[in-house]
């Protein structure tokens, strides 16, 4: 029993990374109605930015704060320079652009920082917490708290502020929002900025565990897409729940399903996703009606 709980807990911890990334995907999706495949590489870039600041002697939380701001500015810049040109061109050019951005960012990071893995210090220390026979590292606990805090912050932003109201309005019905005096471009840009900031938190949660490489988020992004599909990308809570479920399913399958150990265990979360989508196409918590892609 204790072992099962421990496996659940470990699965939950690895699911946090996917959940955080899925949350960023969901924010762009809700704020702009588009799926951004480059979300993971953008987050990795944030992690490198944090590392550069750390190596320059900046205290961790200041470095993180700066990296989040720079990421937000970068997200806004990407919207302004790349996405806006494709406005109205349909979903395929936008998807293609985000894949190109994924590859491009990956290449740039490889050139600047090489593909050698770099250790990324845990902001939460190397402590270990034990209770009732269960273990959690300080990094895991800190990641959980960070995820919950970021979720709460985005929920407040989207549901309780006029900025969030404008973001949702522009994503849902841009033409009507314009007639109400909202500058469409400005708010799409804000949506990208917020998602990039969320991604930066995700990267800092992931980097100490995964070790920092340019491709650090490539695989987690696939799982985050699955998480978004599983939980429902139109719901931020759904995306995070999907991420956690995927982490847990992966861990439990690896431990308890014969033949599915090691990397093979990854079949389990994708199977789970396939089953859920067959039964509920919009995902567990997603709404059936979606906005433009």
């Amino acid at each position, binding site marked *: 029993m204790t072992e099962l709980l421990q496996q659940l807990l470990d699965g939950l911890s690895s699911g946090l990374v996917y959940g955080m990334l899925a949350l960023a995907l969901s924010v762009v999706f809700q704020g702009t109605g588009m799926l951004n495949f480059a979300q993971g590489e953008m987050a990795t870039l944030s992690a490198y930015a944090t590392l550069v600041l750390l190596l320059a002697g900046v205290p961790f939380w200041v470095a993180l704060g700066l990296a989040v701001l720079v990421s937000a500015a970068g997200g806004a810049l990407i919207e302004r320079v790349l996405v806006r040109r494709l406005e109205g061109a349909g979903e395929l050019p936008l998807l293609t652009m985000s894949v190109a951005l994924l590859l491009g960012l990956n290449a740039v990071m490889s050139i600047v920082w090489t593909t050698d893995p770099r250790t990324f210090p845990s902001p939460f220390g190397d402590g270990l917490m034990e209770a009732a026979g269960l273990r959690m590292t300080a990094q895991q606990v800190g990641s959980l708290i960070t995820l919950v805090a970021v979720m709460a912050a985005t929920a407040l932003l989207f549901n309780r502020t006029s900025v969030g109201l404008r973001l949702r309005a522009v994503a849902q019905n841009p033409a009507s929002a314009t*007639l109400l*005096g909202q500058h469409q471009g400005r708010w799409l840009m804000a949506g990208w900025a917020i998602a990039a900031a969320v991604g930066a938190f995700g990267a800092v949660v992931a980097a100490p565990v995964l070790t920092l490489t340019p491709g650090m988020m490539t695989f987690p992004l696939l799982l985050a897409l699955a998480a978004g599909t599983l939980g429902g990308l139109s719901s931020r809570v759904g995306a995070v729940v999907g991420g956690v479920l995927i982490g847990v399913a992966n861990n439990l399958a690896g431990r308890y399903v014969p033949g599915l150990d090691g990397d093979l265990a990854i079949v389990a979360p994708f199977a789970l996703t396939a089953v859920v989508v067959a039964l509920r196409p919009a995902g567990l918590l997603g709404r059936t009606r979606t906005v433009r892609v």
Partner: protein
Amino acid sequence: MSEALLEARRLVARYGSVEVLHEIDLGVAAGEIVALLGANGAGKTTLLRAISRVVSTRGEMELAGVSIVGWSGARTARAGVGHVPEGRGTFLDLTVAENLRLGGLARTREQRSSARTDLDQVYATFPVLADMRRRAAGLLSGGQQQMLAIGRALMARPRLLLIDEPSLGLAPMVTRQLFDTLARIRDEWATSLLIAEQNARLSLHIADRAVILTGGRVAAAGPAASFRDGDVIKRAYLGGGTRK
């Protein structure tokens, strides 16, 4: 006509290479209700969209004496042009209250203090919205969504309210009530109204003046009363235009 709120001269609009509005002259005075009549495809919707600057045009257009040619849609809205679009432009996933709050976000600084009382006034004008304020707008009936769209536009305190086909998809009874409300809105909200509508009889009933479009041109314009016998209108709708 008293002082002109909106003045359009020789307005030309095209979609691609197709010219859909040809040299339109249109004026709306402060506090006036103008009915914009015409058959399907006569250019009513395009003309409204040209006024709110989401369709670009040649020609002149002034709002209270200031040229708005070259303005963005958002800027025009903030200058006091409210637009209830065809299909109502509802934000389906937002609640009724959020839809209305959104309407008020484009207010000028001086108008912001009165947002609260304006919201109460919208609820007083459309009591059914007050009962449903927490409901997602997508769950409202067609008539309720039309009321919501008008209420949302009013929350921006427009000087000129453009309404596109308010009767579309509504039961006759609901339509009649809606037009009664529109007549009241002019006084209670101190705004001018330009109503594009296929239902000529109801529009002429509440309008001061009427402008009839045929094939993207002004076929006739004058006091609403002069059109009530229906001849000009019939010709316009049957596609004869001003030709005999």
